[in-house]
């Protein structure tokens, strides 16, 4: 069997789907469960091509419901398992991920957003924000990383495994069809070479007896009374709020003296960054804020920005899904809010520049 998948650091040029497969290998994932859907298919293709060389496995299930549940089954059996999906597949994935929330089963799901609702386009959108952050019949006890570059796709896919297993909340890497299909450069590496240890996995069930006593590990997703459920959820909420500050990630620049701050996430933040830099070079007082974690959301950090600036311009390839998270985070602020919403369509820096110039 081959040695480590990645020796040292390597600059590579590949599609985002290939990046995810490499990242899962680097993170020592044991098995992928999945069902094909564009634009994430090649994650499975590359995984199935590469994984067997390193003793890793793959199971194609009959749909995404099954892909999600088998992923959780793999995790319960002690495997570092993951899955990937998109669009209508993400919809089906909500059922197993609700169970993961209830039973605190660590899980990693990579989402490559496509146009919605329903089948819509196989191409691109940022319309799976609400569903990925708050889907299912629960409270959104999840962690969602929204990536914007291939380097981030690699870094955060690795990180997602540690976040999930450390905190035991379902963890999502939220990409999109552009990131899935485009090719750009990045540096891949073995996390251990960088001093990053992968959090150990262990079987949740079927454990060996300790001192001759076999303790049952009771993982429940059914409760008999309202009070029983309330107590469990109150504890989960407490856990979630406690760890949120450790997990929250964001980027900002040029916000201190800004009259307007552009807020965007994921691949759109590339356009926002270019736009803010160009506007600054022309003398406009504009800033940039980007949540990397959509859940938990960098609420305090954005509120501090909202208190300093006059206007937030919310830019996303959806009709205000990120905007809902923003408004919830800054509730009570009197900052003006403007929108550039293009559901299911890419946004360029030229469009952001034009929009800002129209506002200032």
């Amino acid at each position, binding site marked *: 069997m081959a040695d480590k998948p990645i020796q040292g650091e390597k600059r590579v*040029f590949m599609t985002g789907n290939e990046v995810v497969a490499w990242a899962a290998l680097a993170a020592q994932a044991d098995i992928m469960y999945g069902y094909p859907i*564009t*634009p994430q298919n090649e994650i499975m293709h590359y995984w199935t091509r590469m994984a067997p060389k390193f003793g890793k496995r793959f199971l194609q299930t009959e749909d995404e419901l099954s892909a999600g549940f088998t992923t959780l089954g793999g995790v319960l059996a002690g495997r570092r398992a993951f899955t990937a999906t998109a669009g209508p597949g993400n919809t089906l994935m909500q059922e197993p991920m609700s169970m993961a929330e209830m039973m605190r089963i660590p899980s990693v799901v990579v989402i490559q957003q496509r146009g919605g609702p329903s089948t819509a*386009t*196989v*191409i691109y959108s940022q319309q799976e924000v609400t569903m990925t952050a708050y889907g299912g019949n629960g409270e959104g006890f999840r962690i969602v990383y929204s990536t914007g*570059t291939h380097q981030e796709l690699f870094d955060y896919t690795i990180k997602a495994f540690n976040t999930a297993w450390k905190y035991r909340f379902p963890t999502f890497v939220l990409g999109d*069809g*552009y990131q899935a*299909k*485009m*090719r*750009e*450069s990045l540096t891949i590496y073995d996390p251990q070479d960088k001093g990053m240890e992968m959090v150990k996995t262990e079987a949740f069930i079927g454990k060996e007896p300790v001192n001759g006593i076999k303790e049952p590990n009771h993982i429940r997703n059914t409760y008999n009374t309202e009070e029983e459920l309330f107590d469990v959820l109150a504890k989960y909420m407490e856990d979630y709020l406690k760890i949120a500050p450790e997990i929250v990630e964001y980027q900002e620049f040029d916000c201190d003296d800004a009259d307007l701050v552009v807020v965007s996430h994921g*691949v*759109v933040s*590339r*356009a926002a*960054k*270019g736009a803010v830099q160009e506007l600054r070079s022309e003398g406009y007082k504009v800033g940039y804020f980007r949540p990397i974690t959509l859940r938990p959301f960098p609420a305090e950090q954005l509120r501090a920005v909202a208190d300093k600036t006059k206007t937030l311009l919310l830019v996303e390839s959806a009709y205000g899904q990120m905007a809902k998270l923003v408004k919830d985070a800054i509730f009570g602020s009197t900052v003006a809010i403007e929108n550039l919403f293009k559901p299911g369509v*890419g*946004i*360029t*820096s*030229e*469009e952001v520049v034009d929009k800002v110039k129209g506002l200032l």
Partner: protein
Amino acid sequence: MAKTWKIALAGEGGQGVQSVAEIIAEAANEEGREALYIPNFGVEQRGGVSVAFLQIGDNQIGSPKFQKADIVIALSDRAVRRTRQYVDEKTTFVYDSSIEGIEDDLPKNAGRVLAIPAIEVSKNELHPRVFNIIIMGAVIKSTAVVSEDEAKTAIEKKLGYKFEKNPELRELNFKAIARGMELVEKAQ
């Protein structure tokens, strides 16, 4: 090279615009430049025009697609109509001179419009299979995003295993690059 070149290549399925974009992007990456290539994909692929979006620069590329291109290369009548939207006064619009019935569809606002006989040269002078390599020559002549040598290295990397078996193919491909560059030079 301070500016980021934005290049849109469009043609019918099988004309090889995606592989051309990919080879150029890889050549630029090998040079240590920033490159981003994304195909259009989706149901359009089933019988639609194939468009490749390619950007090459020195800094990280912004959004994967763009509104206006520096260079548009259109290789069929439908490709001409499809890619007019990426043209402004700074755009060089290159199309194949054998395409018929598009006189009224050519962009009027382009900085330059160049017709090159790539299809004819590939059929009558070289070989239809190197049509896309002629186009690659045309792209690198129009933009200088990669040198002829870098392009050859990238082709070697991609097709080297075929050249091993049939060295004439290497000559054919390299000739195609040179001819593609010449065609643009002449058209200017």
